[in-house]
């Protein structure tokens, strides 16, 4: 067993995180007992198909919740501080933007259309560094625009005057300006073309290398996720199916679902035939018992009717019966799961 590090030394420790939504006809189990941790100055990418609970996980980490929450439990240590026990006001004052900020899915289209860009980027700063002089604040705005590659003259402009790529940089600047320990990015480039995508990833890499920021990157785009990934967390139907270091993951994923996801990635060169995963992810309203991937899994066998435990193989975690023999051990407590650093 890899010794469980002190949560205070990690960028993020998530233990037994649950987020369910209430609908009139049932409960949506969007994030279902997820545990993992992230070392400082690293990036974990959360991948999985549409509807697997990726965005919900981001919302659970940053406490940007819809109104119909049914259950929201577990522990989340951000930069050493447990935040789930905090009331909303304390969270707003001490955690949001200060320790963790988020670039929500499609944020670049959600900028306020009638506010100049500088005013939008200033907002989190003025909110959280009370007493900062306007002069200092503006200096920070200029610096952060420069860092993310938005030309200085653009700060006086309105969102509609910018291309999608530029707007996405502005949204990243907003998340960055308060220097949080962790930034959660939800599909930051999915609506952009490949060149703009690559430019944005260059910006994110420089933020990571030069500012020491940690990232949770949520995306369905497995290939581009490799641009930032140190760790890979595969989500399926609200469950964490695999957690591996990027090097090991991209060299060979463990979980059958992860293998099939990889086989669906178009590659520029090579002979591999593209494959898709027949069927679709299950509804999270009444998810199947047993392994949630079983009905699409070509390797499913009798045991898969029961929910598999999470096995540890070296520093990797995988929730699949196929690893019963090979595994080093079963890891079941949330603390132990979060203690396994990819």
């Amino acid at each position, binding site marked *: 067993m890899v010794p469980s590090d002190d949560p205070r030394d990690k960028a993020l420790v998530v233990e037994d995180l649950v987020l369910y939504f209430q609908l009139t006809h049932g409960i949506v189990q969007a994030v279902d007992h997820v545990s993992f941790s992230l070392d400082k100055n690293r990036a974990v990418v959360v991948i999985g*198909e549409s509807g697997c609970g990726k965005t919900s996980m981001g919302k659970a980490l940053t406490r940007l919740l819809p109104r119909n929450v049914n259950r929201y439990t577990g522990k989340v240590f951000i930069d050493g501080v447990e935040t789930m026990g905090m009331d909303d006001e304390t969270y707003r004052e001490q955690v949001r933007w200060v320790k963790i900020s988020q670039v929500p899915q499609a944020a670049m289209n959600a900028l306020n259309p009638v506010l100049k860009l500088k005013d939008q980027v200033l907002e989190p700063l003025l909110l959280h560094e009370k007493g900062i002089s306007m002069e200092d604040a503006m200096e920070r705005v200029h610096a952060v625009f420069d860092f993310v590659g938005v030309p200085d003259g653009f700060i006086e402009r309105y969102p509609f005057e910018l291309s999608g790529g530029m707007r996405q940089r502005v949204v990243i600047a907003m998340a960055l300006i308060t220097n949080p320990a962790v930034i959660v990015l939800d599909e930051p480039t999915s609506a952009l*073309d*490949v*060149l703009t995508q*690559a430019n944005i990833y260059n910006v994110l890499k420089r933020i990571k290398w030069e500012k020491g920021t940690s990232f949770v990157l949520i995306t369905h785009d497995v290939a581009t*996720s490799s*641009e930032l990934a140190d760790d890979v967390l595969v989500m399926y139907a609200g469950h964490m199916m695999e957690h591996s270091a990027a090097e090991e993951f991209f*060299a060979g994923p463990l979980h059958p679902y992860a293998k099939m996801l990889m086989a669906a990635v178009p590659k520029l060169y090579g002979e591999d035939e*593209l494959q*898709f995963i027949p069927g679709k992810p299950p509804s999270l309203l009444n998810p199947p018992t047993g392994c949630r991937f079983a009905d699409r899994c070509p390797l499913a066998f009798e045991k898969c009717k029961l929910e598999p435990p999470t096995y540890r193989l070296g520093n990797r975690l995988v929730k699949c019966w196929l690893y019963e023999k090979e595994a080093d051990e079963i890891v079941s407590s949330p603390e132990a799961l979060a203690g396994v650093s990819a």
Partner: protein
Amino acid sequence: MSEQQVQEAAFSPAEAQDQPLLSVRHLKIWYELKRFGFLHAGYVKAVDDVTFDLPRGEAIAVVGESGCGKSSLMKAILGLVHPHDGQILFEGKDIWEGGNAAMREYRMKVGYVQQDPYGALPPFMTIRRILEEPLILAGIKDKEERMERVIRSLEEVKVTPPSDFLNKYPHMLSGGQQQRVVIARALIRNPKMLIADEPVSMLDASVRVEILKLLDEVQQERHLSVIYITHDLSTVRYFSKRIFVMYAGKLIEKASTYEILHNPKHPYSWALLNAISDPLAENATKLRDIPPGEPPSLITPPPGCRFHPRCQKAIQGLCEVEVPPHFSVAPNHDVACWLYREEAEA
């Protein structure tokens, strides 16, 4: 005359079998800008002097960045916007000659999968009505015949059994099934040509593969001519044999898919290839070598080569002055870049 123009001139209409299904000649799609609603204030030159052929039964791809004019080119081919200049020849005939009736007849022969699949299917119509409508518009009065074709088309795109889906609404289908219906609708009138504008870019990886494979199958089985539009080169090789790279309203490189992937010539094509990640852990350890900046304004595009402000190879005194012509660097491989002026002349 460039070599290509010579080839075009040598073409004789007697060779009808070799005649391309579609020929685009020096096409210009310019949108007029108006000040105060009536004063001419310039043009958005979304497509500027584009020439290419679509052979019968072949799939080609048009690849380029957002805003480079891909959708404008397709709208022009569909006859939805009037060219500022140039011609679009379908089976040898200019689509704008012959008036409304001819245009309608032409459009019946073209299937179209539009950009943004999620908005593509009307939410309040059943799958059956969605597929029936193009047949009604084509004047097929026999209800039974229409039903039969609806069912056959659902079978072709493997939304089966059709009876399970006929009375469903789009939101009841998965993303992949919805996109299959979009394709079924585009094919239901048995078009000779299919235009697919970013048919997979908004889809999940797995669904994307599902749809690419379907398009490939349909293309081969029907011997269909297809124009596939995308910004993502990585999906192209699974589908089309030829690529036209577009930048700021112009085609800047035309070659086989193999040549573009293994022997790209234009600095912009290099950039497009460099921007793509294959899923490898080492990607996270280095910055991608791609040109900074954004594509230029199409109202006042840069003089000379439109890529020169972002090009690391630009030749001073030439690239920012003269528009590069298409140089032929190999059989069926043209590039509009001054770097090849000697190679091509030799």
